């Protein structure tokens, strides 16, 4: 299974195996990772599953859809993504996602 590393704002990291086809959000929520609220449950409707993706991984991800882009309008930094919209694939093995200090 691909490994995804979730990094908290204080730098602590958790490396998790996440099944291919699951979302990065689901991987966090099902394993009790703090800081990803995911209020809508993965419908791209809440923007409370934000993560920061470093430059080295950004280009490996499919571009955000129009709804995801809309949800991220005016959100600080252009390296944010909604983790419910990122499907884990073998290609993403080793990816590090940073969890922002707040989702609101």
């Amino acid at each position: 299974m691909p490994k995804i590393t979730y990094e908290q704002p204080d730098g602590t990291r958790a490396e998790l195996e996440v099944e291919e086809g699951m979302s990065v959000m689901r991987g966090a929520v099902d394993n009790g990772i703090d800081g990803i609220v995911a209020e809508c449950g993965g419908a791209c409707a809440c923007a409370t599953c934000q993560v920061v993706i470093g430059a080295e991984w950004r280009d490996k991800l499919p571009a955000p859809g129009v709804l995801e882009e809309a949800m991220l309008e005016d959100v600080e930094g252009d390296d944010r993504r909604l983790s419910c919209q990122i499907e884990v694939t073998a290609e993403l093995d080793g990816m590090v996602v940073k969890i922002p200090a707040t989702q609101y």
Partner: protein
Amino acid sequence: MELDLSPKEVEIPAHVPDELVLPFPFLFGVKTKQDPFGELAAQVHAETPPIFYSKHAYPGGTPAWVVRTAEDLKTIHFDTENFSNKGFSPFSMIIGETWNLVPAESDPPIHAHYRAFVSRVFSPGAIAKLEDKIRGYAREYVEGLKDKGKCEFMRDFAFEFPIKVFMELMGLPQSRTKQFLEWEEAMLHSHDLKKMAVATRSVVDYLREELADRRENPTDDLFTYGVQAKIDGRELTDDELVGFTFNLFIGGLDTVSTQMGLQFLHLARNPEHQKMLRDDPSLIPAAIDELMRAYPAVTVFKTVTQPCELKGVKFMPGDKVVMSATLAGRDPAEYDAANEIRFDRESDGHLSFGYGPHLCLGMHLARREMRIAMEEFLRAVPEFRLKDGVEVEHYLGMIQPTAVDLVW
């Protein structure tokens, strides 16, 4: 003409087993002196199976399924194939029109296009920019009442404050606030079909005028945003624009007022909670979410589109489903000691803004309004309590205290 909310003689459809036909206390148009949360919701959880059928649960006194657990409500909120959002509100119908609320009364695939269009202006980032404006309005009310020693919180603060923010967003003059409040009351609280229709007609005419104006005189408000927007490569129709602006009106004003009222009622009855938040205002966001969990006011409705089954219960096309956030918030299977209010509850989330693709569009705005209102009120007003001798009553339907008389 009184809106006929009286229980009708109803025939139970063949696919509904007799033993699932049960009473449900949350009927539209009813007032109660009982505690809707600690008593009524708790009673439903104690006495009924997870999914049951009730003869008068749908507004207008007709039958519907009631789904009582957070788990099943989440499943249905996500299942847009079997459960539709179309046509749950009476407003366009009572004035002889055919538009739908946008995005509330739409289903996939167009729903996602609508959300992509509206989410841009309600994203957390876009809403954060309103912080100072919202605080300015909250201060106006709090400064006006802090030296009076008392207030009726709904009338003196909660009803008007979200209207002011709405006027700001829509580019409408603040001098119209009282007019909007009158329309809102007639539409949502009069339970008189004629008054509802007259008010709805006034609102819709007004929205259409403003939309026409912004086509000619674009500014930076939401009417302008709507008339200039494209969804899926085309402009929105006039009916879609009315549905959109009407949806904001119907979804974004009374809801915020109600939740604020319920929050301050709780604080008035629990001075130790007031003290906690005065001593450390950084606890306010978590407190608001716990109060949203424990006092959810909004019920939404879905219609079944094809035969389907959940937990062994059969649903047939046309069946109505009551999605009560109020029940979800007090579900003992979802929350430890569901009837206790604990600001430090490890967050299990809540369904008080809905769930799934239709999750409240205005959630980030609503949270900001409620947080700022509480920060400003607690900063300016000393310990308050309920006026002696008043008996608190709530409207059911949307669960709203009829009055919140505070003294300090």
